[in-house]
């Protein structure tokens, strides 16, 4: 599958072990409601057993995207070549449409905090990330996609809006972007900016696919929990993004309180409907 084809994958879900039986042996209409799956790369960087067997059984039926959480592209530690080697080996096995990870760092001094930690948005950090994206893409022999993470603090030294930071990385490295609309919504609330400003700044040709997810609103801040259905405000922002970016591959993430597959396919049907309506409206306006 070419990079160009990534954005036309359609509507997908995150692959979760709880859903293996429904995907592989469940009702055909449920399986047909999903166009592709995104896998969590680290969950399949294992040597064998059920995880790999199930992964490949699902892969025989669906296109896949590999999505990681441990690339740590913004860390000042050296790139973890053992990790990258395993990532590349998994890609040979899975033949994903694209490999994605986050604009973040996960640890320094050899430690891993297992979280998507925010970067100071400075020229120094930008140059650092650009250099590392170039190295990673060179090693993997293919472009990667970087996702905007939800953040809860900003740095006093921040000098560049996050959307400009992300756009500059894409322009300087040729990497693709994974636009997480929920994360834009969460960070906009947490840091008091306009979510649409963020969407407006994203270069449409760079966007590989879109993430949607639910979150937990604590009134004074929002936590990106991925344990709830997508909220109306995020659906509205998704419609805005589709009007601006055009038809684009979209998937829904659910990482906790995982419901039956049928429930997620109903939410995915809503994504199709929101996207269709947004595109029709965009055509009418044009």
């Amino acid at each position, binding site marked *: 599958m070419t990079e160009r084809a990534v954005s036309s994958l359609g509507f997908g879900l995150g692959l979760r072990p709880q859903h293996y039986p429904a995907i592989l042996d469940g009702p055909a209409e449920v399986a047909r409601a999903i166009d592709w799956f995104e896998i969590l790369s680290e969950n399949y960087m294992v040597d064998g057993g059920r995880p790999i067997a199930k992964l490949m059984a699902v892969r025989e039926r669906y296109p896949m995207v590999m999505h990681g959480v441990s690339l740590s592209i913004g860390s000042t530690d050296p790139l973890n070549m053992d990790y990258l080697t395993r990532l590349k080996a998994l890609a040979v096995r899975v033949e994903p449409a694209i490999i994605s990870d986050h604009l973040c760092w996960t640890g*320094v001094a050899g430690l891993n905090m297992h979280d998507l930690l925010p970067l100071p948005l400075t020229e120094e950090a930008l140059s650092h990330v650009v250099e590392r994206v170039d190295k990673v893409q060179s090693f993997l022999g293919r472009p990667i996609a970087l996702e905007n993470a939800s953040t809860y603090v900003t740095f006093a030294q921040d000098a560049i809006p996050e959307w400009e930071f992300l756009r500059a990385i894409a322009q300087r490295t040729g990497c693709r972007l994974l636009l997480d609309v929920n994360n834009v919504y969460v960070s906009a609330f947490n840091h008091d900016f306009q979510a649409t400003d963020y969407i407006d700044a994203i270069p449409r040709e760079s966007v590989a696919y879109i993430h949607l997810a639910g979150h937990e609103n604590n009134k004074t801040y929002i936590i990106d929990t991925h344990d709830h259905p997508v909220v109306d405000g995020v659906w509205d922002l998704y419609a805005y993004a589709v009007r601006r970016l055009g038809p684009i591959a979209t998937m829904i993430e659910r990482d906790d309180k995982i419901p039956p597959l049928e429930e997620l396919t109903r939410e995915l049907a809503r994504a199709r409907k929101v996207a269709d309506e947004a595109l029709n409206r965009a055509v009418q306006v044009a």
Partner: protein
Amino acid sequence: MDLLRAEQVFQDGLLGRSQDILGTVRGNKRESAETMFGVYRNAYWARLAEVLGNDFPGLKALLGDPAFDRMARAYIAKHPSQHPSIRWAGRKLAEFLAAEAPYRDDPWFADMARFDWALAFAFDAPDATAAGLADLVGVPPEFWGSVRLRFHPTLDVFPVSTPVDEARPRLLENAEGALDRAARCERAIMAWRIDYDVKFRTIDLLEHAALQAMQGGATFGDMCELVAQEIDPDQAPLRAAQILQGWLEWGIVAEVEHDGLGSAA
């Protein structure tokens, strides 16, 4: 502050080693930097404790939720994760429990953690076909003494001093009746996988010694001598053969090798 320093300060804040981060980051119009940074700090400890709970269900059932959480946080403070996959975060837990007060005073904790870890390891260790008795039957008698075994890559074996193998299923099923925490034993547990099913069984210390010897490259002849040192020498060949037969029947052997293989070709 350069990027390297900013990340060090942030990480030190997460680990509770310094509060300097609060002078470096901002909250929002409604919440302070302390509250908003607390989202990251709380998530760090909670996420790792949750993963340890998932990977060590027997230990969690043994300790109970509040005590497990306290133990997990002490462990994480001592052994922060160094691996890109959170699945390996608990790899030093059994060692920690054997070394640190108050857990070191009760061998149930380290034994249960070791058992939980072996089962988790076997779950996604490399695939391999198991050898069977037929592979042994084909060995010409004159080469029996030279038989060496390559064990299944999912196999993990370790000694225990408490009957965690019996207690774990009961704990996980919330079975009635208190555990006999004074119970002690001398045996080893082996855990491995057949296809996708993780198995375990207990073996006595003689068999454990035989297994360790053959894992280390000893021949069947060497193993017979080892057994003969521990039991009636007249009974040793039969006992050694029974041990070997059991291993092949259970599926813990991946390949049977012997000196006749080269000459047979």
